[in-house]
């Protein structure tokens, strides 16, 4: 499959998933505008993508119908209900089946196309629903557009007899001979023309002999009649406009073509096209068609001329009808031809009809743009695009464009002049940009094909100037077609005055420019503001998309690939060893070899584990990006001036860790803004700069990622904290007196502690630092706070890089094995029984000069057994850190430490707070991992 198609299939499947989910969400919450927008965008993009593959027109058609329905829902014209959801879900089912065809490299199955067509109709019916309630007295035929769409969906080379009442167009599509190299598919394009009633494919030239036949050259002419509007057809053939001729037929002529009847002749028969008030374009098209008829007549062969004459007559009749000319003379001429066996009578009719239209041979009449000498001759494609781009720029410069828009327009216009080789003009246009001269640019566009870019004063005044003559005193031309041509004299004149005109317009516009610059919004002057936009737009998006897709660098995946390669090789050694073991007489040697091989596999497994962990690593910057907006909003609300510095966004940690950090961090930053930083006047009084600083820094330290949030605010007052704690009865007088400043400050982490005199709506209502601490500890992290009165506060958060694998120490007690997470273990000691003292019925011992309370694990677990000392009468004590305090747990014995994958307890067992989870051991047994914090 080609890569583009492959990409299309992959992306489409993603969209289908998202669309299905979106539909379900919308059904639950019909008013969710965000969901509707997202859903619409998905369907819209899906349609846009499929448009790249004309061979799957049925796909596009069906999705388009779905999009239109959703559009109606989005605009509030339709209420989203179960019926719409059903239809759209079915639509996506069919689309998904179509994708299967695409993926298998097949064309879309006809049954699917059929089903898709039907569904598209009912989708449209759903959309138009009650709005299309019409008086049912007349059995209205399908509206032309609808008929057109029904027919265009797929390969109807000759669609039925659904002739619409109006808008019948005949087209002749003569593909370029090298069209296949441009990616055109003429037959497909013609066969899918909207409302196609009839299609004929003929050879343009007689087919060459087998030897000379070149299958890569297109030698086809495709003619068809469509029940569709001319605009629809133009839209359909928009990629090959120069290769298609079209005439609009009267309503009944198509019918006539089908059933052979001849329409009534126009009583006021006039047999020439000239003077019928045709537009320039229509006249040119009619002229081209007529010229083609000459060609056709000239190429008749004895065996086909009758058919050719009939076809020419048909074309002429159509042309005549379209322009209100009678066609009795055409029918007479055809009869005459058939009788006399000569094409002359028709040729004479042609002569008469063509009289007065544009002359020309095989090539289209030269457009006015070719009149002026060009330094570089543009192809038709280029010339057409030039005209379209110019029209676009007129719109762009319409009204009161900003200086930026004017300069953007002038850059592109100057580019086009350079493209044509007119570098002088390009410079002149650039001058207009300097002067912010929109009118001048409009004049340049209006006089583009005249060959000069510099606007005259008259031209400037007359802007907007699509049709204005470029030279000031040009006499009003008497004939309409001359409106875009420029006389040579006028052109010379304007070229001569060009530099002066530029100078004048530049001077005249100088004041204007100054005013415009002053008017520009403040944002225009600086490149900044991006942060603000980013956070404005991104904050919502982060929450939605954070866990949807994990983007991984190529490097990490490559490493995994290498490792799995090694693993495959290492694994292959095992059957070989097994075979050896069967016949070996030396089990010891075999055991050694197995151990060696274990060593190899173990190394690979460890590396793989590390590599997989790496895949889950996310930069902490992911959560930093919402801070700029947060800080901006809050500081503005509080009337404080704050500068935010962020560093180390690249530091990585496991996805879960990074995500668990988001809320605590936001809380801390809010605290800093609300309580830490002072208002500008207070800062000034304290001799500090008015603008406060908040700094967020992330970095990796050993196997932990550290995040520091610091501010240069007023700091935390330990005396106030103590007073508050006393007031709330959290500590007593004696304890308050004994607390150091540092210890006092730590009281902010106590549950329910809030020091703000007045609870603000920003940093919480009673939810304080205790919540932050518990959230961080849940992620096995730690948080430290230090503060200096009047100088600021610093909070340091340490988190493990990964939570997936836990280092666990195994302990034994009452003949059972338990695990304890290593990050809680301070040390393991053997304490002689006589060193254990009982103080107030609490066993304690002294370790490194500190009193450590001791708790037998068996007591904590309600196991009625005493701890067992070792042969030397020493008890095994596991020292665990709980907050700021060390606690000893008496167990029977210590065992190894292992890296294990912890699984939380499920169901009923989930209520056992004393355990943090379970893990599987190498021998298949289950290890219960304790949660000492809860146990104690």
């Amino acid at each position: 499959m080609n890569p583009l198609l492959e990409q299309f299939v992959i992306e489409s499947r993603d969209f289908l998933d998202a669309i299905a989910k979106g539909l379900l969400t919308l059904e639950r919450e019909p008013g969710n505008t965000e969901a509707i927008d997202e859903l619409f965008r998905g369907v819209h993009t899906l349609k846009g993508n499929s448009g790249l593959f004309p061979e799957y027109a049925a796909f596009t058609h069906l999705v388009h119908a779905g999009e239109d329905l959703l559009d109606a829902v989005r605009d509030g014209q339709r209420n989203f209900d179960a019926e719409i959801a059903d239809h759209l879900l079915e639509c996506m089912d069919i689309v998904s089946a179509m994708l299967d065809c695409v993926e298998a490299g097949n064309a879309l199955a006809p049954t699917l196309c059929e089903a898709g067509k039907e569904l598209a109709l009912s989708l449209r019916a759903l959309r138009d629903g009650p709005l299309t309630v019409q008086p049912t007295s007349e059995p209205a035929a399908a509206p032309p557009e609808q008929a057109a769409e029904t027919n265009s969906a797929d390969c109807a080379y000759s669609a039925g007899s659904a002739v619409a009442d109006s808008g019948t167009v005949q087209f002749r599509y003569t593909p370029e001979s090298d069209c296949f190299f441009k990616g055109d598919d003429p037959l497909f394009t013609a066969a899918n023309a909207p409302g196609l009633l009839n299609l004929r494919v003929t050879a343009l030239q007689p087919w060459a002999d087998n030897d000379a036949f070149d299958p890569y050259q297109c030698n086809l002419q495709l003619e068809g009649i469509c029940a569709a509007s001319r605009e629809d057809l133009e839209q359909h053939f928009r990629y090959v406009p120069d290769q298609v001729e079209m005439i609009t037929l009267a309503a009944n002529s198509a019918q006539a073509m089908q059933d052979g009847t001849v329409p009534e002749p126009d009583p006021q028969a006039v047999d020439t096209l000239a003077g019928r008030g045709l537009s320039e374009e229509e006249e040119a098209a009619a002229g081209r068609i007529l010229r083609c008829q000459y060609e056709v007549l000239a190429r008749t062969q004895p065996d086909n001329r009758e058919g050719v004459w009939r076809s020419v007559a048909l074309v002429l009749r159509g042309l005549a009808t379209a322009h209100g000319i009678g066609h009795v003379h055409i029918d007479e001429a055809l009869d005459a031809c058939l009788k006399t066996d000569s094409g002359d009578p028709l040729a004479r009719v042609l002569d008469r009809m063509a009289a007065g239209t544009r002359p020309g041979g095989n090539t289209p009449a030269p457009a006015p743009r070719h009149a002026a000498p060009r330094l570089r001759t543009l192809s038709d494609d280029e010339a057409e695009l030039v005209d379209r781009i110019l029209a676009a720029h007129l719109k762009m410069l319409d009204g009161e464009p900003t200086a930026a828009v004017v300069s953007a327009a002038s850059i592109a216009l100057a580019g086009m002049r350079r493209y044509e080789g007119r570098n002088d003009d390009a410079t002149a246009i650039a001058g207009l940009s300097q002067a912010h001269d929109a009118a001048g640019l409009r004049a340049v566009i209006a006089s583009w094909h005249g060959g000069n870019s510099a606007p005259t004063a008259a031209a400037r005044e007359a802007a907007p100037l699509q049709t204005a003559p470029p030279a000031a005193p040009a006499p009003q031309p008497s004939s309409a077609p001359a409106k875009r041509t420029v006389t040579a004299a006028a052109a010379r004149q304007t070229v001569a005055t060009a530099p002066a005109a530029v100078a004048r317009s530049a001077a005249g516009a100088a004041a204007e420019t100054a005013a415009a610059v002053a008017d520009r919004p403040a944002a225009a002057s600086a490149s900044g503001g991006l942060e603000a936009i980013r956070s404005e737009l991104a904050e919502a998006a982060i929450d939605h998309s954070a866990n949807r897709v994990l983007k991984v660098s190529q490097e990490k995946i490559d490493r995994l690939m290498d490792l799995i390669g090694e693993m495959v090789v290492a694994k292959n050694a095992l059957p070989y060893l097994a075979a050896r073991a069967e016949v070996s007489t030396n089990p010891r040697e075999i055991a050694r070899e197995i151990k060696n091989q274990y060593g190899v596999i173990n190394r690979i497994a460890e590396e793989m584990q590390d590599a997989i962990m790496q895949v889950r690593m996310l930069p902490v910057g992911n959560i930093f990006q919402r801070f700029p907006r947060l800080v901006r909003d809050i500081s503005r609300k509080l009337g404080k001036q704050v500068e935010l510095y962020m560093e180390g966004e690249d530091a990585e940690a496991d996805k879960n860790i990074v995500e668990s950090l988001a809320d605590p961090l936001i809380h801390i930053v809010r605290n800093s803004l609300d309580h830490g930083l002072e208002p500008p006047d207070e800062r000034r009084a304290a001799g500090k700069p008015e603008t406060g600083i908040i700094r967020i820094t992330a970095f990796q330290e050993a196997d932990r990622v550290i995040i520091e949030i610091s501010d240069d605010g007023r700091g935390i007052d330990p005396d106030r904290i103590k007073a508050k704690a006393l007031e709330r009865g959290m500590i007593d007088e004696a304890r308050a007196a004994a607390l150091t400043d540092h210890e006092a400050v730590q009281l902010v982490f106590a549950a329910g502690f809030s020091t703000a005199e007045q609870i603000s709506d920003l940093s919480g209502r009673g939810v304080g630092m205790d919540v932050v601490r518990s959230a961080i500890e849940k992620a096995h992290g730690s948080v430290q706070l230090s503060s200096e009165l009047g100088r600021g506060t610093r909070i340091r958060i340490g988190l493990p890089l990964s939570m997936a694998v836990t280092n666990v120490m195994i302990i034994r007690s009452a003949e059972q094995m338990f695990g304890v997470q290593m990050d809680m273990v301070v040390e393991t000691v053997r304490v002689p029984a006589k060193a254990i003292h009982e103080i107030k019925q609490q066993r304690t011992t002294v370790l490194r000069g500190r009193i450590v309370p001791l708790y037998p694990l068996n007591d904590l677990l309600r196991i009625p057994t005493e701890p067992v000392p070792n042969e030397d009468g020493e008890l095994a004590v596991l020292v665990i850190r709980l907050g700021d305090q060390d606690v000893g747990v008496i167990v029977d014995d210590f065992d190894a430490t292992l890296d294990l994958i912890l699984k939380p307890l499920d169901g009923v067992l989930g209520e056992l707070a004393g355990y943090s989870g379970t893990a599987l051991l190498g021998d298949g047994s289950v290890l219960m991992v304790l949660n000492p914090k809860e146990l104690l």
Partner: protein
Amino acid sequence: MARVLIVDDAATVRMYHRKILEDCGFEVDEAVNGLEALEKAFTTRYDLFIVDINMPKMDGYRFVSELRAREELAQVPAIMVSTESETKDSDRAFAAGANFYLIKPARPVELTTSVRLMLGEPA
């Protein structure tokens, strides 16, 4: 060689446009929405933008207006590309400051010629 930034949320369309432009020798970069495009435009110089309309986070209109509101990016030409159902919105595109509007899928020669014309770089 000129550098073009394709701004489109659909990977398929980006791939299609990239191929067409790269075959003509343009240097091509991609962004998946207006915001990312704006970020890229601040660090890299682009000579032209090809911009989809309907995108998440920041749509094409907003992106082009943001371009035009920034001195150092204001004069970079922008071509809006969108599906035909949005043809009615081309006026809005021009009002935002887009230089041109193409219907998606753009014919290769149409796309490359427009880009070349605006950059003044004939083949």
